[in-house]
């Protein structure tokens, strides 16, 4: 079976508070599910690889086909854990290595 292509995204969370990993995941899944439904969300193959609470950076993996819909879902996040927030895509890469380097900077 042909392996589906994936993209890794480095995300920056912009918020007044310090959201936890669970809060972020709930917001991301909630937004994708609201916009595309459970069937659409399942096609995204969303996986959280790393979350840094101090820098508010997250590293996630999505399938290439779902990259643009996932970006749209992230753009529509306005609240995380009942606090105003925004999620910005810092970088998109086909390999995890370059994103880890960027996240470390």
């Amino acid at each position, binding site marked *: 079976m042909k392996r589906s292509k994936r993209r890794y995204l480095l995300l920056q969370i912009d918020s007044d508070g310090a959201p936890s990993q669970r809060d972020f995941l709930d917001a991301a899944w909630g937004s994708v599910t609201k916009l595309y439904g459970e069937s659409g969300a399942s096609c995204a193959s969303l996986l959280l690889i790393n979350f840094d609470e101090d820098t508010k950076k997250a590293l996630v993996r999505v399938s290439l086909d779902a990259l643009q819909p996932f*970006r749209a879902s992230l753009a529509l996040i306005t609240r995380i854990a009942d606090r105003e927030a925004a999620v910005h895509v810092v970088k998109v890469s086909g390999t995890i290595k370059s994103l880890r380097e960027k996240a470390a900077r």
Partner: protein
Amino acid sequence: MKRVFADLHLRLNPNDPAYAARILIKAASLGYGLVAVPISPITHMQDREKIIEICKSVNIDFVSRVNLQARTRDQLMNQLRKLRRKYEVICVSCENRQVARQAAKDRRVDLISFPSVDYSRRFLDKSEAELIHSGLAAWEIDTKPFFLLEGPARTRFISTIRRETSIAKDFEIPLVLSSGVSSELLLRKPREIAALAGLFGLTESSALDSVSKVPVSIVRRNREKLGSGFVAPGITVLKEGNDC
């Protein structure tokens, strides 16, 4: 060549320079190179200068914009006559069909927008689109309602925009995607705005053009027209006097 990203509708309060500076710094960090701020004709010159200074300090190209909300066709013509040479971008928020038709025909209008959630006053039908196509105006979509609306209200909004986008595509109307926000946390990167456009059927490349190529070309065209040597498109006075 690297794209210059533009937001032609960033609402700033000229009386609160500290907050305006924060929003402009944020816009610069998100990758915007050009920002248009609606400034009312009664705003003091000093307040306007303050915003221009902040834009310079964060390396953003400032564009002056005015939103016209005329009630009648004559009122619109009057406002255009008074303000066209004072602003780089003129947007007409169409309150009724008569004004919408006039705005579409008038070559002094740069952007046409419709009230976001008042569906009875969204006049982008085939006749309107045909008029816009024959003029110079572009259709502006603010992304703010996507963030503020939820549930069935957002679904209806997306559905309306999708229908209107399809008409706009058929008539090759240029489309401009702007934020229309006044809060830091509602600002999004240009590529994220372009991704949102996928919700109403725009392809990635045309969505990216709507946040870069189209708005930048409107500003460039108007700056050329407002320049002192402009005679007609493509004709500019280079030198005048007895020694010519």
